[in-house]
């Protein structure tokens, strides 16, 4: 074996080991979701078994169905994402383009909000929603999600807007587009990759959120991340159903990730190379 081949083989082994840190729990969960509770608890663990869809039937249509919770998650994450993007796009454009007073300070404030530990905000948020009568409501939870997704979305979108040469917009202004039509016809189509990435990240964060959902939600608003706790009780943990529920909860996230893989990679490297992250 040549040194070059052996080096690439060694690299491959290391990469596989690192990847397995993420992949093994997911694959183990996937296997578990097709096992009976008996197979799950078998010792030594069984890898060859008769697969069953019973767990999926149970978590979707059984007495402990998580379907309403999936719908709840979809409403919360979808609304938070939509509201965030509607506010973040004009805000990021303004920060990137307009000569605003205290622009730098504003930009830093946006970033600084990301530095607060969420757990430190739980009690003030709880008290605020309680006073407003918005505990266990969609509007309450969505509003809270916006408070942390909006700064993140603005911060991410600003770099995309800054990547568009100002002359592009000036050309549109000279062509009588006006600022709003220049934004709509010229700028937004060029940052659609950035909009896609930001939308996905915001949606993922909202979909996967647990801490706020468990404290500020309740019986009416109960996202799937919270509902999964139903399968864990003092007496027992229903591992197979928990695994099936986890797989169902992960499905939209994985699907989104696959669809937007190309954009996400570009989004993570935006600004790394001049013009490299655009579109």
């Amino acid at each position: 074996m040549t040194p070059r081949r052996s080096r690439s083989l060694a690299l491959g082994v290391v990469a596989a080991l690192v990847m397995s840190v993420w992949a093994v729990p997911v694959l183990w969960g996937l296997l578990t979701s097709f096992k009976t509770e008996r197979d799950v608890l078998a010792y030594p663990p069984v890898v060859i078994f008769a697969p069953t869809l019973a767990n999926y039937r149970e978590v979707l249509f059984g007495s402990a169905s998580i379907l309403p919770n999936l719908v709840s998650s979809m409403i919360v994450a979808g609304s938070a994402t939509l509201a965030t993007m509607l506010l973040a796009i004009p805000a990021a454009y303004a920060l990137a383009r307009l000569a605003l007073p205290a622009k730098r300070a504003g930009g830093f404030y946006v970033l600084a909000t990301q530095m607060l530990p969420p757990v430190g905000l739980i009690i003030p948020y709880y008290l605020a929603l309680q006073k407003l009568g918005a505990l266990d409501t969609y509007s309450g939870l969505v509003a809270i999600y916006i408070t942390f997704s909006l700064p993140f979305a603005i911060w991410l979108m600003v770099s995309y807007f800054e990547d568009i040469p100002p002359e592009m917009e000036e050309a549109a202004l000279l062509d009588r587009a006006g600022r709003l039509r220049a934004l709509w016809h010229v700028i937004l189509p060029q940052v659609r990759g950035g909009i896609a990435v930001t939308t996905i990240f915001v949606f993922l964060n909202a979909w996967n959120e647990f801490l706020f959902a468990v404290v500020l939600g309740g019986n009416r608003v109960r996202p799937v991340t919270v509902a999964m706790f139903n399968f864990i009780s003092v007496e027992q943990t229903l591992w197979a159903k928990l695994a099936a529920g986890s797989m169902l909860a992960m499905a939209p996230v994985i699907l989104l990730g696959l669809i937007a893989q190309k954009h996400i990679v570009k989004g993570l490297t935006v600004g790394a190379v001049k013009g490299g992250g655009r579109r």
Partner: protein
Amino acid sequence: MSALGAVRLEGIVKRHGAFTALHGIDLDIRPGEFFALLGPSGSGKTTTLRVLAGLESADAGRVVLDGDDVTAREPGERDVAMVFQSYALYPHMSVAENIAFPLKMIGTPRDEIDRAVHDAAAKVRIDHLLARRPGQLSGGQQQRCALARAIVRKPRLFLLDEPLSNLDAKLRVETRVELRKLQRSLGVTAVYVTHDQEEAMTIADRLAVFMDGRIVQVGTPAEVYARPANVAVAGFIGSPPMNLLAATVRGRALTVDGMPVAIDGDPGPDGDVTLGVRPGAVRFADRGLPARVYLVEDLGDTTIVDVEVGERLVKMRMDARPAVHEGDPVHLAFAPGAVHLFDGASGQRR
């Protein structure tokens, strides 16, 4: 095409914080004229163009187009089109959509847009590329696309910000000829920013030379070349630029390094002066300024000879290769009518 396009800038001042980019620019551009704003980087020519377009607001002064004060008007309300140095083509639109954009913004009917787009594209010979995206075009084709987008709505004023600077040397020379022809055929006023004096000299009807945020001279290329207003313009215009030598006037006689230099006319009052002479007006002579040949550059049709006069280099341009070699001692003479004199202190022409 309208016969409009008279431009008047009155006392335009532009500041960026503590820095003053334009110190009161006054300029008159006639309808149908191809007018160049020429100057080195940072001299204020692009800022002037942007103020004229409305992309930057002036801190003082007025912009008047065809008698209308447009100083406070938005860029889109001035009826001007601009070709940017980077072309600023919209990458997500096809060539046809790029050209159609200005017409779409003013609500022109679809069939009229199609006709105008084809006409404009044909004028700049890109009508076979209409379906392509800007990213699929060469630099020259992108430049034509930007031109077509500018001419499609028949503006009264056509602004060009170094539109040829991203093209290679050969294409630049070809395109500037076409640009001039296009402007003539459209009869539209064009204001053209460039730092390339050769480009300005060949393309413009008249030009304004910018230095440090001020206009130092306005005139036809021939006027500016023949009678530069000061040392800075003299050193900027011409390729190679004018040779500038420290000289002295004593009792109506001009000397360089103690050697008398003959000139036509009166050199003016006593004092230190800067003598300017174009490379083409310097000749070898039997007597005159002593010098030493430093370098002979054969450019094919002409030869540039660098000679050392004391510590300074003087450039000579000759049609035929002279029989001199590097290191040869020589004497220089200047054609008397071709000597320019500038005041030693102010740099202004005497």
